């Protein structure tokens, strides 16, 4: 119970007014306009972040395209089927009784070759003259000068006629570019992929280690029997520290064209934050903890650009929308512990891009590691979380993928 003179002082001071500081309104007006127009210092700092996010996504896509194009050059060294047909060498086999040499690759002594009759003839399946074609001739061709005068057109016709008869063909490609090394052969041909993944904080790791962040105000909604469930109240938070978000999800992907997969899925995110000196309404909390639970749907594009042995390398980019489904702040006020719920009507959108490496342990299963960077757009809600304090996040995702379907 206060003394009477203290009550008197309290009554007098509660209604006492002092002169307005000169120039204060102008300062407030200028500062508020700058803040809302984006020219405020912190707003300006935030305004470049969407552009940074777009640059990160564009750079990742560009790097992926360059790597894919570089890999494609090597694959072009594999002749197409048409090219192979164009330089196909058909070697007609003679009747077995006369066959002494059927494999042109067999190198026989000259004396043996003279005993061969007739000698294999060389036919071209088309009339293209390839100066670097392999030709197989025996010494006896000199004795067949007359026959060698057969025109190429007749050779073509003859080859067509012989193609319907019994014959053994021996073909070999004569690609004169080196075959690509297996390391750069793209082999992914599975139509569908399903996977599970996790990323973020497991057993520790804070976004802000030590010191915390000073935050001016925090507003959350409180469900109360006497108030509307969507009502909001203002609280002042002294310092905050946000833990790295923990994410767990499942994905489903569909390969629309070779090497390009579009995927979606469901992802659960858990965000935890600690406050010091949190004011809520008329209650003060020396320490408080906030736990937020989000559910979201990602849409992702993956492009496989290389394979080396059992490892596939790919680029990825996508967009992610999530919604707060449950939130709670638990506060300690000396010996009293109280809690209130947190609500957020707005969706939380983000974009991400990165590179990944998948180790295929079997035909269908593979483990993948995916470092990526994400940018979280400010949804202008009053919920304070790591998405707002650190819009740009570097994440390492680990997952398991099952590929199936042709």
């Amino acid at each position, binding site marked *: 119970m206060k003394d009477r003179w203290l009550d008197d002082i309290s009554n007098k001071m509660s209604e006492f007014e002092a002169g307005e500081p000169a120039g204060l309104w102008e300062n*407030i007006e200028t500062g*508020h306009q700058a803040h809302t127009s984006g020219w405020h210092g912190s707003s300006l700092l935030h305004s470049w972040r969407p552009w940074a996010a777009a640059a990160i996504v564009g750079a990742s896509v560009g790097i992926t395209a360059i790597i894919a194009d570089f890999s494609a050059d090597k694959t072009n060294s594999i002749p197409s089927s048409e090219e192979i047909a164009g330089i196909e060498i058909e070697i007609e086999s003679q009747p077995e009784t006369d066959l002494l040499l059927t494999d042109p690759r067999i190198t026989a002594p000259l004396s043996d070759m003279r005993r061969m009759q007739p000698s294999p003839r060389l036919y071209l399946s088309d009339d293209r003259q390839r100066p670097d074609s392999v030709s197989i001739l025996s010494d006896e061709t000199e004795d067949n000068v007359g026959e060698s005068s057969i025109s190429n057109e007749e050779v073509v016709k003859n080859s067509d006629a012989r193609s319907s008869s019994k014959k053994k063909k021996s073909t070999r490609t004569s690609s004169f570019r080196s075959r690509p090394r297996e390391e750069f052969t793209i082999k992914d041909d599975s139509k569908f992929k399903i996977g599970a993944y996790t990323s973020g904080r497991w057993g520790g790791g804070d976004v802000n280690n030590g010191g915390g962040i000073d935050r001016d105000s925090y507003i959350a909604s409180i469900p109360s029997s006497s108030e509307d469930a969507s009502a909001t109240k203002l609280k002042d938070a002294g310092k905050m520290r946000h833990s790295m978000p923990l994410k767990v999800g499942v994905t489903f992907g569909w390969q629309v064209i070779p090497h390009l997969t579009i995927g979606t899925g469901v992802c659960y995110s858990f965000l935890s934050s600690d406050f010091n000196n949190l*004011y809520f309404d008329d209650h003060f909390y020396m320490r408080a903890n906030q736990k937020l639970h989000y559910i979201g749907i990602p849409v992702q594009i993956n492009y496989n650009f290389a394979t080396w042995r059992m490892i596939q390398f790919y680029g990825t980019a996508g967009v992610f929308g999530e919604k707060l489904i449950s939130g709670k702040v638990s506060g300690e006020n000396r010996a009293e512990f109280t809690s209130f719920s947190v609500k957020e009507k707005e969706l939380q959108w983000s974009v991400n891009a990165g590179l990944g490496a998948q180790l295929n342990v079997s035909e269908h299963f593979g483990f993948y590691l995916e470092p990526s960077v994400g940018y979280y757009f400010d949804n202008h809600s*009053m919920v304070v979380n790591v998405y707002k304090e650190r819009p740009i996040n570097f994440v390492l995702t680990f997952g398991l993928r099952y590929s199936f379907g042709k």
Partner: protein
Amino acid sequence: MNTTVSELELMQLVERGDRNAHKMIYSKYIRLLTALCGRYLVDDEDVKDVLQDSFMKIFDSIENFNYKGEGSLRAWMSRIVVNQSLDFLQRQGRISFSPIDQLAEEVSDEPDTSEIPASVIYDLIKQLPDGYRAIFNLYVIEDKSHREIAQLLNIKESTSASQFHRAKNLLAQRIKEYLNNTTI
């Protein structure tokens, strides 16, 4: 500027997005909040800076303020100014308390403040040391408990109680000196 507009009308203007709403709110409460801030901070420039920060915060979040009746807006704004003032003092490291040997003597009887103008009491409060002044304001005028004050200032509850007792004695002594000087 008309300062007799009710808080309900002001909130309705805010909801409608009236561009003058902020100025009307400022005009209605600036003198009250200046006096409140001045009880915590002695320097006029510090008062101006803290008030600017406070109003920026108020205007940034007023659209989400839950109006609960006449007086709730004022209480909300006052709370923000008090918090900003305390934050300022703590950042400046000015929440400190004098050693025992510098304390005022114990005042046996209560001073009579009924004839003392509010402006004089205001000035006498501003003359208290920073730490004493903060605790006195929080306990007597903001009606905080020693437990809450201890949490706000990161001190022990017993420290809040003892420092308030000393602040009260010091203020009582200065009120008596004022009364003695005015009667002479």
